[in-house]
């Protein structure tokens, strides 16, 4: 028998955005958090380098500079009113986290310590500015732990290891979700006035990715299947410094502390491309420069990787060359970057203090996602119509504060600022709204049917083979460099895989902890998202931020200064909406 629950406000996903929303919603109304993981397993915990806010603790800074950097970093596709909100409220959000107990590193006078990060500048001198507030290189871990601790303190209700497989939408309003309890396989219907989706990214459609196995886009796919659009899906960030072959992230904080990229000739090649910011240019640019080096034969040993060099004597050499009086030693790096130094030692057998580290770009972050307004309310179409009762925040959402390319540290800023705004907005909404009736049995039946179809399917295709082929084609054709012909091939391949997906067979026919079943269900979600990603990428015949078309290498503001909205109702429909430009007119992006 399906089980039934009723809460004013539901939060799906227990990373930074979800927990922040839950903390604030639960101050006002009856709130529950549903997550397919234990909350502390969420991917926010892997964020390393820092969370930016113009605190000005170590040198002059202004939130307006942070906003300008964000907009320029986003290649002018950001909605500027939303960016202003984020960068202004980032200051209080970081202070709020400190008050909750977050153990930030400290300056000698006891304030929150800050460091440099890619694309964050003093707008007057154009030089890097110390804006990223950090707790060693486990800032995300400390944010996640601190928010979870505060949820425990405030008795927030959790449904851990419940996986949401459907969103209840009727007459353009959201009434809750359907989930499966992983331990039992039972279907649970959660009835709510307001539901906030905060399930993070969906990078598992690529092979080389920094994303966790769990980042499979379950909720964006569910929303898409319920006839709602996704925004800017063609914009996905490839982070320049993934561990070669594995994709594990080595934080930009390494370059913030002075590390540089080196090619096969031993050359610090970023100087050639971006003479002012050099190795601290934004991520999309660094990733393209790395691939250009590789294509022109200057990858290490002619192969498809370059080095990230953070040997102390090298860092000091480049500090000196740049006229920076700072000098560091091995102990400093071990304190500032302990985790990523350990990643290199464990996974590559390389000691970064003594040897340069092989790296390659890795699929990292979705700039696109579920469209929302500035209060995390989900949008139904390109005109800005609201889906009553439905909210989204964090990586899964597209506000859009990141535009075509996210700046480092801004994912954490986004999730605390808009998680909080979403939580407050939900609580206010719930106080004046009443529960709309739902067909709970029909909802449960439809959820169970989704799973039974997979459980009982007697085909001849292995889900893993399909997943591997999807990831291969996404790496090859929908990666850092794209072409029209390549994207068409990718779409054909995804359609072939979707057809084969209908003929899958799984081994586990049971109910309790059937991870075989849930992985197969997740593959269906990833295939749908891969399809709309490739479609949106094919239609955007320009290059902007993380979306680079070799056949259209220039930005085209006349035709493409606009957000895409994609629907999948049988066939795929694309529409566009204008970018909200308030203060900063688009300009050429030089660093």
């Amino acid at each position, binding site marked *: 028998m399906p089980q039934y629950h009723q809460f004013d406000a539901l939060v799906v996903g227990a990373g930074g955005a979800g927990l922040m929303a839950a903390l604030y919603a639960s101050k006002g109304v009856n709130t529950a958090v549903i997550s397919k993981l234990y909350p*502390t397993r969420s991917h926010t915990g892997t964020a390393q380098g820092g969370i930016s806010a113009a605190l000005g603790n170590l040198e002059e800074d202004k939130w307006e500079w942070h906003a300008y950097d964000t907009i320029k970093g986003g290649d002018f596709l950001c909605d500027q009113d939303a960016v202003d909100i984020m960068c202004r409220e980032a200051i209080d959000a970081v202070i709020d986290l400190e008050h909750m107990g977050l153990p930030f590193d400290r300056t000698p006078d*006891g*304030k929150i310590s800050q460091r440099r990060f890619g694309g964050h500048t003093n707008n007057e001198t154009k030089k890097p500015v110390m804006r990223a507030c950090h707790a060693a290189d*486990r800032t995300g871990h400390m944010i996640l732990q601190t928010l979870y601790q505060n949820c425990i303190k405030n008795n927030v209700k959790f449904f851990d290891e419940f996986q949401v497989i459907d969103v209840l939408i009727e007459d353009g309003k959201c009434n809750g979700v359907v989930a499966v309890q992983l331990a039992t396989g039972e279907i649970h219907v959660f009835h709510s006035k307001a539901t906030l989706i905060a399930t993070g990214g969906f990078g598992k459609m690529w092979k080389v990715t920094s994303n*966790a196995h769990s980042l499979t886009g379950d909720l964006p796919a569910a929303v898409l299947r319920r006839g709602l659009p996704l925004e800017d899906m063609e914009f996905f960030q490839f982070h320049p410094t993934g561990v070669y072959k594995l994709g594990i992230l080595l934080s930009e904080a390494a370059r913030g502390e002075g590390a540089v990229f080196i090619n096969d000739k031993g050359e610090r090649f970023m100087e050639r491309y971006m003479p002012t910011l050099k190795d601290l240019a934004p991520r999309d640019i660094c990733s393209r420069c790395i691939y250009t080096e590789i294509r022109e034969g200057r990858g290490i040993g002619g192969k498809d990787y370059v080095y990230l060099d953070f040997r102390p004597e090298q860092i000091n050499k480049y500090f000196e060359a740049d006229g920076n009086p700072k000098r560091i030693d091995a102990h400093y790096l071990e304190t500032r970057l302990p985790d990523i130094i350990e990643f290199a030692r464990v996974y590559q057998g390389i000691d970064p203090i003594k040897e340069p580290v092989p790296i390659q770009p890795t699929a990292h972050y979705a700039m696109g996602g579920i469209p929302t307004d500035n209060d995390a309310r989900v949008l139904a179409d390109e005109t800005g119509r609201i889906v009553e009762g439905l909210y989204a925040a964090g990586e899964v959402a597209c506000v859009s504060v990141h535009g075509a390319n996210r700046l480092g540290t801004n994912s954490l800023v986004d999730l605390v600022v808009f998680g909080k705004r979403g939580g407050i907005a939900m609580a206010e909404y719930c106080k004046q709204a009443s529960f709309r009736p739902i067909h709970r049995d029909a909802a449960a039946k439809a959820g169970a049917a989704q799973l039974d179809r997979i459980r009982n399917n007697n085909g001849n295709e292995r889900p893993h083979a399909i997943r591997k082929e999807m990831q291969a084609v996404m790496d090859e054709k929908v990666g850092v460099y794209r072409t029209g012909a390549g994207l068409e091939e990718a779409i054909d391949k995804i359609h072939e895989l979707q057809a084969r997906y209908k003929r899958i067979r799984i*081994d586990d026919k049971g109910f*309790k*902890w059937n*991870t075989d079943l849930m992985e197969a269900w997740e593959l269906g979600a990833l295939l749908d998202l891969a399809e709309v990603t490739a479609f949106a990428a094919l239609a955007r015949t320009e290059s902007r931020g993380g979306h680079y078309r070799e056949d259209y290498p220039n930005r085209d503001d006349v035709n493409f200064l606009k957000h895409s909205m994609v629907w999948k109702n049988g066939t795929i429909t694309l529409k566009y909406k204008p970018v909200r430009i308030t203060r900063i007119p688009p300009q050429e992006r030089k660093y």
Partner: protein
Amino acid sequence: MKINLKIKRFNPETDKKPHWETYAVEVEPTDRVLDALHDVKWNQDGTLALRRSCAHGVCGSDAMRINGRNMLACKVLIQNIAKDGDTITVEPILGLPVVKDLIVDMEPFFAHYRAVMPYLVNNDPLPANGRERLQSPADRERYDDTTKCILCAACTTSCPSFWARGEYVGPAAIVQAHRFIFDSRDQAAQQRLEILSAQDGVWRCRTAFNCTEACPRGIQVTKAIGEVKEALRTGVIR
């Protein structure tokens, strides 16, 4: 290289008790044990159940008993524990009820975590200037080690005292308490020490050091427990 994975299996829907199954797997020496488990799951037997997420030692999902020692499956490379042709044994962590294959019921573990007030308590008014509370780098450094904990349970489920008595709060909960007891901003140290001085608190620790050895984050767990004991003994937190 070729290895055998000998995995302790239990399906609650069909089995009365656990049994061992052995799978031959072709791996790269630099593969993680998690990669080998995925190879089994994805290419040989999809019914194998395990938890995993980040796959690089940060989320804490995949603590398991590998060759008799607690490790994260994603943080140990095959080449570090096996040679060509060797057998690697994998079983669930001990001391928590097995739910299916390598998955245990984590609820008793998290109940202990919640019991030690794992959150900052400070009832003073916030700074009037609207800014952060100040903390010196030395005060921040004091509890740095225990902020690394990812709640994977590798320490608690390697502890003989916990195996003997599941009511013992266990090393992970003490690590969490330590993180706040020694935070200069916190005001609830005495309450936490009171909780930890109870029958199933810190005195159940027999200094076996298994926890320190098991911690995938390199936390000096036994040392942290010792500092809590010292604070209880002397009434001084330093």
